């Protein structure tokens, strides 16, 4: 019989991992389709957190009901950044992609600090815990897990079944060929940016239910999204699932038995090891080096 503490850690890890899957999926779709290295992802998540926070403070609504607005606001920011930044740098190299998205991230981070100061903002959102077989399950985490899985599956179905989704996948596979058969590449890029940024906002809105928001909060989340994506393999949706769960379990177990900083350090060490051993990730099809 497994002692219940380990089972507890495992379940919490899986629940957190569900959220991390959503965190990585927004990054995954932008990177996969635009072939751009989005280092601003974390700051987008941070902005999503603030949107959820302010809307629920001003309107006193349940934070779960506000989630779509995080998606929409970040989608609009996606539109602005595509028009203002990505459309210029897209044809340049990796170096420019990297630096432009870092610049975008700093811009958003500075803006957040200017507008809302560096105080920690936390939402009070609590539900009584469920107790099943001596294991506590937080309903907040459970609802976050459910919503993020649901959103990921919707995105997956969208990419698989709809016309636009098929276009997006075509551009991801071979953008030159896609243009040749009459797909408007720029339009698809724009839609993808908006969806990807929107998912970052959604992840931020969900994170806001459990963690505090502050202007530099995004850095760690952005890096975690990168870790999950690289562990799973660039562009692999199943990989993001596995990567999210691995990181979630690692983080919860180290945070339970040691402390949270060490947990993050271990996650990043795992990431460096995987990059060194298998740059294409666990489920990646080919090395993109």
């Amino acid at each position, binding site marked *: 019989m497994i002692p219940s503490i380990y089972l507890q850690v495992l379940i919490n890890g899986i629940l957190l991992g569900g959220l991390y899957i959503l965190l990585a999926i927004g990054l995954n779709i932008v990177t996969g389709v635009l072939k751009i*290295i989005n280092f601003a992802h974390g700051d987008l998540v941070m902005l999503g957190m603030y949107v959820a926070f302010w809307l629920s403070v001003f309107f006193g609504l349940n934070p779960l009901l506000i989630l779509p607005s995080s998606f929409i606001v970040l989608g609009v920011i996606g539109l602005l950044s595509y028009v203002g*930044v990505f459309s*210029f*740098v897209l*044809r*340049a*190299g*990796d*170096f*420019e*992609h*990297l*630096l*432009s998205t*870092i*610049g*975008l*991230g*700093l*811009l*958003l*981070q*500075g*803006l*957040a*600090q*200017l507008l809302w*100061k*560096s105080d920690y903002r936390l939402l009070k959102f609590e539900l009584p815990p469920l107790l099943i077989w001596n294991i506590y399950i937080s309903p907040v985490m459970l609802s976050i897990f459910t919503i993020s899985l649901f959103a990921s599956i919707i995105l997956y179905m969208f990419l698989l079944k709809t016309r636009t989704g098929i276009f997006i996948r075509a551009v991801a596979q071979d953008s030159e060929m896609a243009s040749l058969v009459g797909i408007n590449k720029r339009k698809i890029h724009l839609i993808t940016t908006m969806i990807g940024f929107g998912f970052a906002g959604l992840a931020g809105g969900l994170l806001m239910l459990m963690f505090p928001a502050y*202007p530099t909060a995004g*850095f*760690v989340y952005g*890096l975690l999204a*990168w*870790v999950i994506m*690289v562990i799973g393999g660039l562009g692999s949706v199943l990989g993001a699932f596995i990567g999210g769960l691995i990181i979630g379990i690692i983080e919860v177990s180290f945070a339970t038995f*040691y*402390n949270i*900083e*060490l947990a*993050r*350090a271990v996650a*990043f*060490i795992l*990431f*460096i090891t995987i*990059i*060194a051993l298998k*740059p294409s990730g666990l489920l990646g099809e080919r090395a993109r*080096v």
Partner: protein
Amino acid sequence: MYNIEGLLILSISILLLLPILDINPYFVHIIILSTMFAVMAAGWNMLAIAGPVSLGHATFFGLGAYFTYFSLTSGNISSYVALLVSVGVALTITIPIGYITFRFRITGIYFALVTIAFAEVLRQLFISLREITGGSLGVSLFIKEQSYLHFIFDSKMPYYYLVISIFLTIFLINKLALNRFLKILTVIGNDELTAASMGINILKYKLLAFALSSIVNSIMGWFYIHYLRYITPDVAFGLLTSVEIIIIGILGMLNFAGIFFASLFIIPLGEVLRAALGGVYAGLNIFIYGLILLLLVIIRSIRIGKR
């Protein structure tokens, strides 16, 4: 090319002569910081011209500062030994990481990710090991009496001359001794395959460049802890320090003299925004850094697109 280097020599000599006049200590402080960042950006640049873009170059700066602190507080050790210690630490970190990444051809985005993740590992570790590192509050160096042994002075002027002469030394070494080395690095950065087919040992040269650039940065960490006597994990391993280094490197058009002037522009700008407007408009400096970086990159991309 020669003009801007002549301008560099001229401005450095002006800076060296300037203290004859009685100048404002705050001005001295800003020049010290700018020169310090110029040295670090020059170090970063040494690796960047060979191709790999490091996003975590503050790591070596931070390690240099922390290990200098550890050695100075662990006993009656002089600063010169502490310098050797911090350079040694930088080397023991770069050689394995550089070997693994360059050997397995982890370039571009993956190299950037490895360096940024590594900096973050160290930041989280230094925050979590509170007993040794003082956690996120950082550490301060308490040495009261002035001494050449510990490089502690009441006045700012010794630090001023020290950092400018370090910059000058690195510049002269670059110009006189490393000319061929830097050209080889540029060839590798332009076209790795061509360089390899000409018989250049790419792994060796990249490793050397990485080692040199980390040494330069750790020396600046050593300098920083003596000068400001205070360091926190966020300054030591944070993204912002690395980004400042990168902005200076790019604005300086990846050449030595340009970097010096870029640093003389960026660091005072950041300081003024932080000091003058910091109370009301905290975050404005980050916002403007982001804006500058975006504009630089967009201009660069448009130029690439036209070519």
